[in-house]
Each structure stands twice: as C-alpha cells, then as structure tokens.
C-alpha cells in the first residue's frame, strides 16, 4: 500500500536504490507504450498482409503469404501445399485446381503425374512476405492519388492563407490604437470556443450561395480566420517592442514593409506553432469536408477513407494500406518536430 502511495505522489530523487515505486513507474510506462503504439503497429503489420491472410481467424501476427511455384505448362504460378499422401508420407505439391473436396495436385519435379488429394490432407506452405501490392494498387486502382492531391492542396493553401490573414489581423490588434480595437478583439475571442459543428447549416448556406459546394475553396476559406490563430499571434506580437517599429518608420518604411520585414520575422516562433497546428487541423479535418464535398473527385483523404470503409464489401487490405499512407505524413512531421510540438502545446494550451 505504501508503494502505491509513493507511486501516486511526487517524490523526486531518492538516491540509488530501486524501489517498488520505480518498478511500478516503469511497468506503467511500458504498458503505456504497448497500449499507445500497439494498435498502430497492428495496423501497419496488417496492412502488409494479403487479402487471404487478412480473412484468417485467428489472425497471424506477421504477414504470411502462400508460397507459389512456376511449373512448365502452367501460365499462372501454382500455390504450394504440404500434403500427407496415402502411404502416410509427406510431400510438397503444387495445386493445379480444386474440385469440390478434392484437389488436383502435381509434384513440381514431375509435372505430368496428377494426384487426387482430399483437401483436408493438405496445408498451405507459407512464409513471411510483405504484400506491398496493397500499397501500389492503392495508388493505381482507386482515386487515392486524387484524394491525396486534394488533401495537400487544402492543407497547404489553408495554412498559407491562415498565416497571412491571421498575422495581419494580429499585427493590427497588437501594434495600433484605433477606435473599435477592443471590441473587435473581444468579438474574435468570444468565438474562440464556437466550433463549426454549431453553425453547420448557415455556413453551408453561405458556401452554397458563393458556389463553393464541391469546391476545395469551400473547405479552405471558412476555417481560415481562426480566432485561435489571431489570439496566439497577437499575444506574441505584444512582446515585440514598439521602438523597433518606430525606428523603421523614421527610416521611411511603410506600414506594410514594417509588417513583413520587421514584425513577421520576429514573430517566426509563433507563426511556426500556428503553421504546425494549421497543418494538423486541415490534414485531419473531417466533418466540414464531409458536408461540402459530395463528389468523389473532390474528396480529401479523410472523406475518401471514410467512403472506402463504408462500402458494403469492405476491402480491408486496401483500407489498411491507405490508412497507413494517411497517417504517414503526420508521423513524419511529428518525429521531426516532436520537441517543438509538445512544448508549443504545453505553453499555448491549443490542441493539434
């Protein structure tokens, strides 16, 4: 009980000896790794399995595929089986065809001699193989590349626009005194917690009026004036000394030049945080694209994936491969910028 107590309480730096609390700590962390990474690892392993391998129950841990052999006289490679013969001996045979409960099999060494084998006496010969065709066919057989392109266009376009208009507004709100400034800021802040799910119908009306249904602009623009971004950048720009701006003005720089040559470079850390958030928001966005984009050629990855998994006959081998492809870019960004993202979130309280 006291070990549990110590585990629950913060006591740093008892020297040297490994206590029960330490064991519990690391047991928790290792269990955490299994629970957090296990499902993703299982997804990746499964995505490399053949369709046949995926249908097995209980599932195999590693991707296994049946070995095949090319025999002269047969255009297709033939699947290999271990077969128990009538005399009780075992042989490795290739199956030519299966008729009901019997299989016609041949020995690859002597292809002319056809044996009739009951199917329950044969077991497939399998070995570890990555079914990379799940991935290559995802690219060629479906609209996957279209979805990917749409997602990239939305993510990049929306992030650029968000950065520009948010930083301009933040600049005005942090570096100028003008009538209505506080009111405007207050209105923006008060919508900080209003998600698009609360205003779906009227935003859809506006999008419809502008003619942006089934148009990527309809996904990009509505979320671009994010109150979170304006707030984040404004707070950061407040820390930039006004004297820098004034010295620029004395040198004859226009306000626009002060914005892009002095303020934006100094606000780079906050811009980077917002850029990362924006990329994650847009890449992962689902509900709004689901409403705006109804024709398959405009789907983003998330909407496309949802459509695939909702089909009557789910082709899991493709769905899994596409899911891996969808999580890959975010995983890459995360592994590169991990420290930056975690500290950015801890200090801003904004969710990715």
């Amino acid at each position, binding site marked *: 009980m006291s070990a549990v107590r110590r585990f629950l309480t913060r006591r740093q730096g008892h020297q040297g000896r490994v206590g029960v609390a330490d064991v519990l700590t690391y047991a928790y962390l290792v269990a955490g790794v299994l629970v957090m990474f296990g499902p993703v690892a299982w997804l990746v392993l499964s995505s490399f399995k053949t369709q046949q391998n995926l249908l097995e129950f209980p599932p195999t841990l590693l991707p296994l595929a049946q070995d095949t052999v090319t025999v002269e006289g047969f255009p297709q490679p033939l699947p290999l089986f271990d077969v128990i013969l009538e005399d009780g001996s075992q042989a490795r045979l290739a199956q030519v065809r299966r008729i009901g409960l019997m299989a016609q099999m041949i020995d690859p060494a002597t292809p002319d001699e056809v044996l009739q084998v009951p199917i329950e006496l044969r077991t497939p010969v399998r070995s570890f193989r990555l079914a990379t065709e799940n991935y290559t066919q995802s690219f060629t057989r479906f609209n996957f590349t279209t979805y990917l392109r749409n997602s990239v266009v939305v993510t990049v376009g929306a992030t650029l626009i968000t950065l520009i208009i948010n930083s301009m507004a933040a600049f005005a709100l942090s570096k100028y005194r003008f009538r209505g400034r506080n009111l405007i800021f207050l209105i923006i802040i008060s919508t900080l917690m209003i998600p698009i799910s609360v205003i779906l119908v009227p935003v859809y009306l506006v999008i419809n009026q502008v003619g942006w249904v089934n148009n990527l602009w309809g996904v990009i623009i509505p979320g671009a004036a994010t109150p979170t971004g304006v707030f984040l950048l404004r707070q950061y720009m407040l820390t930039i000394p006004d004297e820098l701006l004034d010295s620029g003005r004395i040198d004859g720089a226009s306000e626009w030049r002060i914005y892009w040559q002095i303020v934006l470079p100094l606000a780079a850390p906050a811009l980077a945080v917002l850029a990362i958030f924006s990329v994650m928001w847009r*890449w992962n966005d689902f509900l709004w694209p689901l409403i705006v984009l109804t024709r398959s050629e405009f789907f983003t990855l998330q909407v496309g994936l949802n459509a695939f998994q909702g089909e009557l006959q789910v082709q899991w081998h493709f769905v899994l491969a596409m899911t891996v492809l969808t999580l890959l870019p975010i*995983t890459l960004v995360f592994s590169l910028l991990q420290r930056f993202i975690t500290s950015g979130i801890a200090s801003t309280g904004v969710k990715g």
Partner: protein
Amino acid sequence: MADSITSRRRVNALAGSGVRGVYALVMNAVGLVMEPIQRLVGQRNMAYLFLLPNLLVFGIFILFPMLLNVYFAMTSGTALYPQDRAFVGTANFERLYTCTDYTNPNTCLEDRFWRAARNTGVFVAFQVAGMVAISLLTAMVLNRKVRFLGFFRSVFFYPVLLSPVVVALIWKWILQRDGVLNAILIGLGRDPINFLLDGTWAMTWVIIVSIWANMGFYTLILLAGLQSIPLELYDAGAIDGTSALQSFRHITLPLLMPTMMVVLVLALIRAVQMFDEVYVLTGGGPGSATMLLVQYIYNTGFGTQNPRFGMAAAASVTLGAVLLVATLIQLRLGRGSERHLA
C-alpha cells in the same frame, strides 16, 4: 565528411535564400498596392486595412452564420435559402423539447434528439472523468524522475496527432468480430464479443477510443502544471514530516487545481462536440446507441434526402448554448491559470 557538410550547408543556404527571395518578391509586389493606399488614408488608418481580410472571412463564415443560425432555427421546410423558408417562431424548439416523460426518449416528439442528448450525457460523463483520471496519473508518473522522458512523453502524445478517421479505422480493425481482440479473448478461453454491434460495448469502446486518442494532450498540460510546482514546497513538507499522501493532498492537488480546471473544461467542451471518431467507428450504431448530438445535427441537416435544416439549427443552437455555459465557466475559472492560454 567536412565537404559534404559544407555543401549541405550551401544547399540549405541556397534554398533559404530562394524562399526568402520569393517572400521578398511577393511582399514587395503587395507593397506596390499597400503603399499608395497608405499615402491616401494615412498611417493610422492602415490598421483597418490589415484587419480587413481576416474580418471579412470571420464575418462571412463565422459571425454572420452565428446570427443566421438563430433565424434558421425559427423556420421550417426543406429549402435551403431563408427567403423560401416558412417562419415558424419557436415551433422547432417546442418540438425539440416536448416529451411526456423526460427520462424516456421514446415519449419525446423528437426522440432521436433526446436519445442523442442522453448518449452525449453518458459519453461526456465517463469520457471526461476517465480522461482526467488517466491523464493525471500519466502526468504524475512522467513527473517522477523518469529516464527517456522525451520518448515516453511523445509515446502518449502520438495518437493526438492522428486524424479521427485514422483512429477510428485502427480500432475498427481491432474490434471487429474477426479482429485481434476477439482472437485474444478466444485464446484466453472466453467467448468472442461483437463489440461494435452491442449497444453497451459500442459505447464503452467509443469512450475508450476517444480517451486513447486525446489523453496525451491533457497529459502534456498537466505535466507542465506539475513541473511548475516549486520543489522547495515538498522539501519543506518532508522536513515537517508529512507523508507522501499528505503532500499529494495538501501540496500537489491545491497547486494543480487551476490546471486541472482548465483540463476539465477543455475536455468537457471537446467531449460535447464529439463526432468524427464515433461516426467512423460505429456510425452512431448499433441502432442509435452511440449517436451523439453533433451526429444528430449532421443526420438531420445533411445525411438525409429530406434535410430538416430548421431542426438541425435548433439543435445546434441548443448545443451552442451548452458550450457557451461551459466556456463562461472556463473564463471564470481560468483567471488563475492564464499561462495556459497566453
């Protein structure tokens, strides 16, 4: 080796100057428009110009729709444009809130709304409680002197970045009837369970999956809160002979309270809005066992041949009011913990 480093640097510098060149070119080009305007309106009024693009988008796609939403909620029919819609006053709200027995959704005129509301209540209660408990436990474990802290922290954080659709598909694959979880159950000598086709199990897993996907975010915030507690307090406590449990109750908890409140309200606000994961994982099913409020709005206004925009808007006004209350609570509680928003 040294050569490759310098050449890489040169490439980086070239790429950097290329980006900078494009940046300067674009900004100078915009300047050709902005500078004459400044001469025209004066330096002080440039603030309005800087605000304009953001305010346009904000006004058209956030502020105006917020106001329009209330009007939509007071009209009926399947037409999208307000001028084609019949004004019905508070009829939608009346229909939405009419039940003979409020504990039983079947007696409500809009029974699906009440089912969604009840599901959302169950979901929010268990998800937020579980989320805060697990995040706090994880943050406290990470706050001990842990080796490879960076690694473990990012392990718990990683799912936060995954898209809800990906999260749902990962778990759908695990939870399906022939999935790996049932294989494990059979291996342990138990009967397999059709997790996503049983109402209670589906709700349980929807809650677990959404905690799995989001706990890393709250863990990070709580960890930052824990690390801001001065160690001297614990040392002083140790000198006075306080037990570990006492120092947790009397030092950690009170000092962590502002952060806890932020986490609690943020988790609450997000849980009330939950849609994506649940929609892809269960589709609201089986039946309507996991249909939450946002899905009710989506189904009523968009996922149907006969959209009832008025009902959808009335439901979303209700949802907005709930969120508003939660936000106001956060603003009140948040005064002591502004560092998490600033």
